[in-house]
């Protein structure tokens, strides 16, 4: 009954599946990003209070959301590795860490850039900003922990434990704007249900950019995971055949 589940965890299957669908994902992402960015950054009307500089929200909100989503995803795959010992789950979790750290850094940087004109400061120790900074530290800690181990398996398990411990930070980030008085605004004024403040011409481009950035994240994740698969499975037959095929193609081209 569970056979399909474990078959899904086969690195070889992941490799061949992504081989087939990655170009599609790239095209969809390019489509979503180009429409969303041109629409959001150039065509939507300026905000009546913040003027043009609210447009950074089209980058800031999706990256900040994705930074947390990436952590949750990494923790889920870590749990999957710990529970079922699926090697592919650990490879994906490993790929999540540097991408998540970068996205978190982008979310913090865009937030800071937005803060200078609107708050008058680029950094303030409020709960939302501080807890997001902690998440960046957690990502870097996980990367550092993995690189400290010589054994792939021990490093993977240690990182899985640390990722799961760090999950406590996620609800803190999510609810920080409600639990504490923060300079960072709550999410209510940006939610889709608040149609008076957010007419479709404001949130539709956000929708495009959001899914575009998600697509970009998935592309980066898949590419990193594929590299990891090739590295760890380098002694297997199918990787050797793959390398031979590439070499033959290069020779015939030359």
């Amino acid at each position, binding site marked *: 009954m569970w056979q399909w589940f474990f078959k899904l965890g086969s690195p070889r299957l992941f490799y061949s599946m992504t081989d087939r669908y990655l170009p599609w994902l790239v095209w969809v992402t390019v489509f979503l990003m180009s429409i969303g960015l041109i629409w959001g950054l150039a065509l939507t009307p300026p905000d009546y209070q913040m003027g043009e500089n609210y447009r950074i929200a089209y980058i800031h909100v999706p990256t900040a959301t994705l930074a947390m989503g990436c952590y949750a995803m990494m923790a889920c795959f870590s749990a999957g590795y*710990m529970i079922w010992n699926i090697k592919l789950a650990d490879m994906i979790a490993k790929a999540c860490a540097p991408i998540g750290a970068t996205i978190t850094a982008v979310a913090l940087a865009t937030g800071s850039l937005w803060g200078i004109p609107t708050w008058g400061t680029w950094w303030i120790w409020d709960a939302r900003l501080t807890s997001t900074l902690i998440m960046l*530290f*957690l990502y870097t800690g996980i990367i550092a922990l993995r690189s*400290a*181990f010589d054994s792939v398996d021990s490093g993977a398990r240690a990182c899985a*434990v640390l990722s799961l*411990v760090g999950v406590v930070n996620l609800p803190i980030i999510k609810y920080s704007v409600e639990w504490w008085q923060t300079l960072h605004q709550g999410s209510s004024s940006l939610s889709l249900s608040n149609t008076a403040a957010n007419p479709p011409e404001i949130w539709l481009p956000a929708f495009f950019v959001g899914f575009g950035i998600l697509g970009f994240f998935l592309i980066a994740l898949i590419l990193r995971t594929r590299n990891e698969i090739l590295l760890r499975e380098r002694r297997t037959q199918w990787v050797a055949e793959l390398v031979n095929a590439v070499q033959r193609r290069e020779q015939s081209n030359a």
Partner: protein
Amino acid sequence: MTENRPGLGAVIAGTVRRELLLALRSSGEVINPLMFFVIAVTLFPLGGGVESSFLSSIASGVIWVTALLAIMFSMDNLFRADYEDGSLEQLLMSPQPLYFLLLAKVFSHWLVACLPIIVLAPVFADMLAMPAEGRLPLVLGLLVGTPVLCLLGAIGMALTVGLSRSGLLLAVLILPLYIPVLVFGTGMVEAAMSSLPYAGLLALLGAILVLTICLSPLAIGAALRISVN
């Protein structure tokens, strides 16, 4: 087999007694965290200025941060020697519940490394010109907060005990997790110094303590099994 197995209470008491005895025999385990705390606190007035208005504004932060660092550095004593002489493997193979053995171990570490710091904290608060109304919340916060620091530090230590050079790595792993405790602990003192109620912050620290007592021994155990195999 099972009938001559000692009860849980006896095992916990035995673990605590063993840990305390080991700590007392090698007195550095008791003295060094305390001396680090004392010396590090002394550096701040010497480096930053001795005006009492300046000192009182940084007092709670200095005491909390140095206590936190002292505890983090002391975590090395918790598993290192046991790992090297093999008693950690015995602990993991023991038929007794690992959860309570680990809690007992961390509790004895807290007694040895943290309690002296908590006792000395009000003295240093006075030396840093902290107003008298900040003293009680400082001690209460440390009493509730430092066990959390020990339990979280034990997770980081358990993850890195198998590595040969783990000092800075441990700091990178667990200092981010220490931040909430630091924020609430210093927040209590700040609140008391501006005559605001601090019971809510103390309750939050207590909630964090209950959560870490419930969950962290599971993570410590899982991490130790990874490090030992």
